[in-house]
């Protein structure tokens, strides 16, 4: 009859959960005891059979079924004209001038949810005097069967505006990746008649999903010149998970 300590040692050896000194003890045990060898052989046989059993694949539609049933919290949106986060920059004029917006727009500042009265904070922008130093930096023309239009990057030293003026006849997803550009997301503005109802963001990634005419502006702030490594903003377009387009806007 094997001692419990011996069984423990053999089981841990089979599971790879043994220290170096214990390995020496285990080897000596197998060399000395026929009963230990027999127990070890039996256990190794069971474990190798378990390891031969392949993983099974879930049904192909399971992930979609699950995704369709999960409701996530709505993305945080803070509708405000507050200039605090822009350190006094004339945000509304800047956007209007750079994007040429004359229609009603809503500004969603990407930040913590507050008790702000959202309804009162959507208004009409008139073309402003412009933001000093705002210049066009680069653009991407997208001309694909599924989606077409232009993504224009403009801005000044510490503020960048990324304007999407695109159209698609089916649901497409735009993704903006800032990694290494030294920029961070500061806000999101859209023309009211071209609603973009589905967007989400993280520190350096913004996703917008919609179809039809889409005109929106992503407001970007400079974090620091030192943080910039790639010097570019990556814009990609996909449809149902399939990549359709990718381009880089240089700063």
């Amino acid at each position, binding site marked *: 009859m094997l001692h419990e300590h011996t*069984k423990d040692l053999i*089981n841990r050896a089979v599971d790879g959960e043994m220290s170096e000194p214990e390995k020496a003890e285990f080897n000596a045990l197998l060399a000395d005891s026929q009963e230990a060898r027999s127990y070890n052989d039996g256990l190794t046989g069971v474990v190798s059979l378990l390891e031969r059993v*392949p993983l099974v694949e879930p049904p192909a539609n399971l992930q979609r079924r699950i995704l369709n049933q999960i409701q996530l919290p709505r993305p945080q949106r803070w509708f405000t004209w507050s200039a605090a986060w822009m350190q006094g920059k004339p945000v509304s004029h800047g956007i209007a001038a750079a994007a040429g917006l004359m229609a009603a727009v809503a500004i969603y500042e990407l930040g913590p949810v507050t008790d702000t009265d959202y309804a009162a904070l959507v208004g009409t922008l008139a073309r402003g005097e412009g933001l000093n130093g705002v210049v066009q930096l680069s653009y991407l023309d997208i001309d694909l069967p599924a989606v077409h239009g232009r993504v224009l990057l403009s801005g000044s030293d510490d503020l960048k505006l990324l304007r999407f003026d695109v159209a698609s006849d089916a649901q497409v997803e735009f993704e903006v990746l800032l990694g290494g550009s030294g920029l961070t997301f500061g806000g999101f503005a859209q023309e009211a008649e071209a609603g973009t109802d589905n967007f989400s963001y993280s520190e350096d990634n913004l996703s917008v999903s919609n179809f039809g005419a889409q005109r929106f502006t992503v407001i970007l702030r400079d974090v620091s010149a030192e943080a910039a490594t790639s010097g570019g903003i990556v814009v990609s377009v996909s449809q149902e998970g399939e990549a359709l387009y990718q381009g880089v806007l240089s700063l």
Partner: protein
Amino acid sequence: MGNSRDQALIERCQRGDRRALEELLETYQRPVYNAAFRMLGNPEDASDVTQAVFLKVFEHLDRYDPGHKFFSWIYRIAINESINQFKRAKRETKLDDTELSGARGPVEEAELDADSRRVQDALMTLQEDYRMVVVLRHFSEMSYREISEVLHIPEITVKSRLYTARQLLKDRLVAGGEG
């Protein structure tokens, strides 16, 4: 299974980022499904349990304690859901006199290879406490410590149950013509 990556994905989910949700699903759907399948022995029940696990996880995401590993939490829910499903199927079997969860139809039978079938049949003869440690150790590839975290039992209990379970499995496989 990197907890810092999981944590970042969870935070993005809490902000409504569906891309992060898809990444979490891609990471955990297959392992959760496999654990459920080995606990229940039936692909339909495993699919139902996998779905229930993710719905529960995202419904209660605010209750997730970042001090603990996400994968421990999701596996714990998977094991609990599997046990509940097994008990439900057992009750229904008694009421309806129909097939017990774990019984396979001809399609599922054809999909499993010989080893898989023998192991699954032997697994289904084990008590739930024994089956779950075998599943977590050999199909989810967890260490003793990780199993202990998932099941909220001491490591010494994990080892004791695992050793007994494997001995029982061996006996039943030998009795069934495989050892």
